[in-house]
């Protein structure tokens, strides 16, 4: 697959997935060259940029590392073999419009990546035998609640995007505050009351540190829940090309659910 266009030498347009599972980018061609010289990236690693439908090995795009010292403007302005002046100017104008859209799409991606992640959480959790039974969002906090179709246990998730601006996400990566909760019916009102009392104590925690487990009870439904606060890097699960690493996401949610279930059963059952 050919590249949709050759990005400028210093244009941040390239995304690289290394054989070690690392996701790098967006990188410029010059930064890619530096990473290859440092041995962080090899030609066997895969790259993607806006306009491509699939990742390709870097060995299939040698032009990315060619003419790095040639001034960008000169390369862009030179006519291609057999190209008329009219076509050349149209190509340059088309390139400017396309770059503008790429720029806009980078901004949009940074602002809605949390919702892409939310959709991935829904898909991943449904695939493990749950139904979505609650969904609420105020644009900042996204809340989901699922019920297991077999044992009626419940899973809740709150996702809060912490790096919605492109500039911040480029520096820190795509970070989110993720709260995962697990709930079961405990079958005894006194245990639900115990959980509600524990929730009252939890209320003194204004901002829980990561790894803090809190509990709550829902008198209306007889469910007792426990939850844990964490920070997750959304970029680990959602690629710039919108591909989702479902195996990793399912594993991480599953391990968290497992730990919370063990805690809840140890405490209330």
């Amino acid at each position, binding site marked *: 697959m050919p590249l949709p266009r050759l990005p400028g030498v210093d244009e941040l347009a390239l995304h690289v997935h290394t054989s070690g599972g690392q996701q790098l980018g967006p990188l410029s061609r010059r930064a890619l060259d530096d990473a290859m010289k440092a041995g962080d990236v090899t030609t066997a690693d895969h790259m993607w940029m806006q306009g491509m439908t699939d990742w390709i090995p870097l060995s299939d795009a040698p032009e990315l590392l060619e003419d790095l010292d040639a001034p960008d403007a000169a390369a862009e302005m030179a006519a291609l073999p057999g190209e008329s002046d009219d076509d050349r100017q149209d190509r340059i104008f088309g390139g400017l419009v396309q770059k503008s859209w790429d720029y806009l799409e980078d901004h949009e991606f940074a602002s809605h990546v949390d919702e892409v992640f939310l*959709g991935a959480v829904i898909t991943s959790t449904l695939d493990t035998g749950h139904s979505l039974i609650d*969904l*609420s969002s105020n644009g900042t906090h996204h809340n989901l609640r699922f019920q297991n179709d077999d044992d009626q246990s419940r899973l809740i998730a709150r996702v809060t995007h912490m790096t919605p601006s492109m500039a911040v996400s480029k520096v820190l990566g795509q970070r989110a505050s993720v709260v995962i909760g697990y709930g079961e019916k405990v079958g005894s009102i006194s245990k639900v009351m115990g959980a509600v009392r524990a929730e009252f104590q939890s209320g003194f925690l204004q901002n829980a540190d990561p790894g803090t487990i809190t509990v709550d009870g829902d008198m209306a439904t007889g469910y007792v829940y426990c939850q844990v606060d964490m920070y997750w890097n959304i970029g680990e699960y959602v690629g710039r090309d919108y591909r989702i690493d479902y195996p990793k996401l399912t594993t991480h949610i599953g391990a968290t659910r497992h730990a919370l279930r063990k805690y809840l059963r140890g405490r209330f059952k």
Partner: protein
Amino acid sequence: MFGILQSFNNQAEMRESKDEMLVGEIVRAMARRNHPAISFLANNDWQRVRFKTPTDPLLFSIFVTLDRKTGTGMLTEALLGSKATLRITAEVKNRLSDPDDLINMYKTDLANIMKMPMLGGIKLNHQMNSVFATTQTVIEIGDYVQKGDAGTEKLVALLSKIEGQLREKLEPYKKG
């Protein structure tokens, strides 16, 4: 601390969550078609999810709006089932627009003044850079939720069919 529970409607019965269950199934069905969700709007009456179509050469995004019509109460569910209106809008986006698009936009708006997106019909809406095609259909929620893989496959087939119809209408509006 545990504000999450307060943020939910806390439905006591699964019947009251059928909208959300269908929304979840729609998100999963669209993910199977490589259309990730990029925005969620949810309130008591209707829910809308926007999907990106990153590998589609024609479509830019798809909106799915779910409006529950019957089955919110136990009696209506028993008598009528749980029916919902599914409104689907596909969007084509052109990288360049010019005054001709402005003229076309008004022409489409004039043609649409008296037109409702009736069941099965397709309504076009022309903005400067975007052209939207919308259709809607009534579905029985129970056909698609808690049916396992069969329900998901049925939903994928329904959404693919509707997307194909909208695609046909939008194709002439995509600039090269």
